[in-house]
């Protein structure tokens, strides 16, 4: 009878069904193994955690030395009126745990400063650290420890109507970047031997009407391309004009009925439609070229990650078996065809992809051995995934906060470039930096006390000026920014926190699942204008 079913897994599958469709079982497994640390259970902080606990991270830890205050309860869904005076870490942890029984969580009732002082090693045990409402000095200390330890750090903040997010990760490698506009990997400009042989075995002229109209368009493209090449010195159509005449050539292949009227042949329509994309020359994308030329790839050591070992194997493959090409992806698009010929065609591509993958695998094994590692250190399915996605590999390297904050290495050019646009969100970056400077001088944020707004705005203005000076920038386009920021009084607006919680959690999921490309490196959201932008700072 039927194999016994693991009840818990069935439940999980049902619960996570809608998201498994986005990142798959392997992405979910990584998520379920992730240990997430949140520093400070602010509204933004708990909103981020909520969005990570629901899809099922492994565990979370909240580090927060604060007690719950009245104003916390007003904007934080995970703190209650009766919890005022209790540990914020403790209360938020308890309420957040109710969201998902498969997630474990614990509270550390210590300030981040204490942790940094007494036990900085503790922070290195997490998959990623998320920080909200941390003073600048502590943030810089924390980030340099994590940066050195290669632990990703996400800084997130809701300040009045402004949202801010900064990713700090030394290096993040992505195999499944999942671009949504990828072309098919058909290699019509360098046809597979199998395709050539197969296409020659088919004679369009001799086919019955049914066979003719169900010949896969890939075969049609190949055959007419051969014809075209004969007429054009072996060249394939390259520009718009040539592609247009190539389409006409294809159109001439449509059979006509006894009255000379062209038959309705969908496969030809598909072939004509595919001309624009299917004839793109097969080449190595510049990002991938950059990866195989990267020193991390060319100078492997026993410390090198699987990604770079596989990248080295890929480089060798391209130079040898691949004849300058990436391993074949092996999938063909759906097309009007009879099953028999579609499957034959599919098998040709699958088989080549398999052969390529075997070649890469044996190179991976050689490299592993030469590095003194067991040749099965990297699993076959991982190599297969790597080959299949070899055109989409990505590496993200974010600058450190130290680099960003010290005037010598600040991204002045990026900032001044954006200064040219008077509506740029970059001004809010300057304002937030100024608010932090204000805080470091006066130990409160501008506008916190209603009766000091006017004097605060004068002080804030001087903070803005000194930041602008540090970055050798001109003045702000309008004074309004200063008044506006004072008005915010550093308060967290729940709907901004909710927005940032969604965006930030999504970035965490990208990092944890190693899928999709995270932002690099600063994101600003303006709730007044509902606009947002990214900057590399």
């Amino acid at each position, binding site marked *: *009878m*039927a*194999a016994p*079913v693991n009840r818990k897994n069935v439940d999980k599958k*049902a*619960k*996570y*069904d*809608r998201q498994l*469709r986005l990142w*798959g079982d392997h992405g979910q497994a990584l998520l379920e193994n992730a240990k997430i640390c949140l520093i400070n259970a602010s*509204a933004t902080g708990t909103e981020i955690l*909520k*969005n990570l606990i*629901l*899809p099922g991270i492994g565990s979370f830890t909240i580090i927060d030395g604060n007690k719950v205050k009245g*104003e916390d309860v*007003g*904007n*934080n*869904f*995970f703190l*209650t009126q009766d919890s005022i005076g209790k540990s914020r870490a403790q209360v938020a942890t308890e309420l957040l745990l*109710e*969201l998902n*029984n498969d997630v474990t969580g614990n509270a550390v009732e210590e300030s981040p400063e204490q942790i940094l002082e007494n036990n900085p090693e503790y922070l290195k045990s997490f998959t990623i650290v998320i920080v909200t409402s941390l003073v600048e000095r502590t943030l810089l200390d924390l980030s340099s420890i994590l940066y050195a330890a290669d632990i990703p750090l996400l800084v997130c903040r809701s300040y*009045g*109507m402004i949202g801010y997010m900064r990713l700090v990760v030394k290096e993040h490698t992505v195999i499944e970047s*999942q671009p*949504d*506009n990828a072309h098919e990997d058909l290699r019509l400009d360098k046809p597979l031997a199998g395709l050539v042989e197969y296409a020659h075995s088919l004679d369009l002229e001799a086919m019955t009407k*049914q066979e003719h109209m*169900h010949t896969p368009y890939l075969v049609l493209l190949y055959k007419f391309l051969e014809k075209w090449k004969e007429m054009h010195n072996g060249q394939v159509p390259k520009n718009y004009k040539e592609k247009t005449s190539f389409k006409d050539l294809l159109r001439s292949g449509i059979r006509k009925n006894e009255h000379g009227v062209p038959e309705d042949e969908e496969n030809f329509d598909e072939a004509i439609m595919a001309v624009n994309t299917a004839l793109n020359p097969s080449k190595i994308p510049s990002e991938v070229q950059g990866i195989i030329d990267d020193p991390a790839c060319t100078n492997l050591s026993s410390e090198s990650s699987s990604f770079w070992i596989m990248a080295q194997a890929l480089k060798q493959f391209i130079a040898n078996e691949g004849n300058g090409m990436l391993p074949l992806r092996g999938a063909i698009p759906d097309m009007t065809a*009879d*099953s*028999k010929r579609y499957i034959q065609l599919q098998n040709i591509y699958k088989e080549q992809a398999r052969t390529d993958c075997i070649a890469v695998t044996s190179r991976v094994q050689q490299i592993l051995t030469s590095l003194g590692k067991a040749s099965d250190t990297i699993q076959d399915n991982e190599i297969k995934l790597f080959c299949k996605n070899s055109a989409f590999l990505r590496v993200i390297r974010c600058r450190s906060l130290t680099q960003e904050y010290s005037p010598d290495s600040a991204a002045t050019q990026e900032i001044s470039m954006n200064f040219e646009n008077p509506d740029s969100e970059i001004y809010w970056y300057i304002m937030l930096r100024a608010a932090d400077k204000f805080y470091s001088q006066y130990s409160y944020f501008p506008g916190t006390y209603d009766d000091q707004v006017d004097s605060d705005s004068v002080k804030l203005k001087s903070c803005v000026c000194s930041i602008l000076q540090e970055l050798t920038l001109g003045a702000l386009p309008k004074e309004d920014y200063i008044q506006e920021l004072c008005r*915010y*009084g550093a*308060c*967290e*607006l*729940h*709907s901004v926190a*909710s927005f940032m*919680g*969604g*965006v930030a*959690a*999504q*970035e965490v*999921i990208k990092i944890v699942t190693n899928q*999709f490309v*995270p*932002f690099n490196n600063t994101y600003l959201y303006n*709730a007044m204008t*509902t606009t*947002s*932008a*990214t900057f*590399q700072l």
Partner: protein
Amino acid sequence: MAASVRGILPDDTAEMVSACKVLVVGAGGIGCELLKNLVLTGFNDIVVIDLDTIDVSNLNRQFLFQKKHVGQSKSQVAKESALRFNPNVKIEAKHDSIMNPDYSVDFFRQFTLVMNALDNRAARNHVNRMCLAADIPLVESGTAGYLGQVTVIKKSVTECYECQPKPTQKTFPGCTIRNTPSEPVHCIVWAKHLYNQLFGEEDPDQDVSPDTADPEAAGDAGIAALEGKSNNVDAGGIARTSTREWAASTDYNSEKLFRKLFYDDIKYLLSMDKLWKKRAAPIPLNWDLLPPEEPSSTTNSNGDIKDQRIWDVRECVEKFTDSLAKLKKQYRDQGDLVWDKDDSASMDFVTAVANIRAQIFGIARKSRFKIKSMAGNIIPAIATTNAVIAGLIIMEALKILSGHLDTCKTVYLNKHPTARKKLLVPCFLDKPNPKCYVCSSKPEVTVQVNCATFTVKMLEEKVLKAYLGMVAPDVEVDDGKGTILISSDEGETEENNDKCLADFAIRHSSRLKADDFLQNYSLILNIDQCNIFDDDVDFKVVGEKPRPISETEATSSKVTEKGESSSQSTSQSSTVVDDEDDIMVVVDEGQETSVSKKRKLSEDDDTKSAKKSKVTSQTRNGDDDTLIIDP
């Protein structure tokens, strides 16, 4: 409460927030987030309505619900959970459909603001009309996977939800699938559910037996009918055990399965007679008396194009038997199966089952090839997108309350970077489409039908309810005599149902006046006689204006197509300033796609990427992209 808001919002707006009464329609993905945001922004008086109950697959994002709540009312549990976190707010929960006639225009008038958090087109259309009728501002929203959208609708100021045509919807209510399929895709979805019930992971949401809780059947069909029937079945007690256990107990005997699924269950459906008052009743298929083999013109001896040929019923039954045996073996060897369109037995099974069911319900059968492409696209759904969208809804709501409707925007959440690295694309709200068949002052549409074959019932179900979104229409022929064609009062015009339009002297250029009193909505239908339609359609709603009278019916479709496009371009020229307007496609949580041309807010143009979103949101399985903020 929400002290922080007071500092940031002008005092009078903050006052409005705490004094106003708002309606949240839907307590699902967006609804949960929205309810939380409302409470924490200082809203004090909230009514939330949802007819749904909680399902396991909601728990990955609808955070007000927990495992223990599965099966309970969404609105009720959402209210209780939100109150537990913040007891000082007044929340009223209604476990009901917003389309229930109890929720009249007067009901809507008690609110300052209505916020939609819905998952289906029908309800969106309805709320749109109710808000127009009550002249209450509406914040409309939707999410799908990583995509989302928020917009504001205000009578006479902005476009309404129906100002631009929307493509047809792709998800279906459970009772449509289980009781009243009317399209091939309904049968395909049912077939996949059956597959999972028998061999896959059992999902209580994918029940394939008749749904006795169908609100339309109003439960009067009588359980007795079922009991009586199932006692006659030799397996006995079908209703008591799960479909899989029962199937296993028969050793997946294809004849027994067939008798239950396609005879007994259909008989039972027939006993729910309310369902068939205005619909063609299904015809149970008898295993021993299958329709004769159809001489097929497209069969060719090589069998080369077998995928594109439509199997006749006998062939479907053969395939059903064969694939059942294969799947039984696979299931015994490897446990739970996952439906895969590329697995031959799985695909055969779904094709055969879908077509047998289609036959029973008088729906066109489809080729295996077509079914493969139609089968299965569930729109993914995650917490993060809903959180983002709910945050944006509040921002728009605050702008409305502060009297700054002019600053409200339609905001699109992209899933990939735009050329300018923008995640959010805000667009100006468009002016109402003066030719909108809903919100213009004297709305009219042109309906192409063949009056000689199109029945009154088809007019009511397919055109007025399904396509034009009316709930309880009254229709009168504008013939000087005021002939009543359809009355919303039960039983009054039932005898007209099966008559054709021509029987009422309705012909080309006839005008029908349709009224929906609940929606406070009336519409003139201009009839355009047309004899030739594309596959699978028997009517077409085209441009707003009636086409000029033409003698040649055969060319009518071309003429109106031209008319349609020209009317569209006029309606757009009033709102679109530059030529570089983008085409945005955003899919709602309920798999609904809306295409509209929008004027971008900023001058910078992300034309390329916006267009990309159109391509990618169509039908991609499992390899969706994410909120990539930076390439």
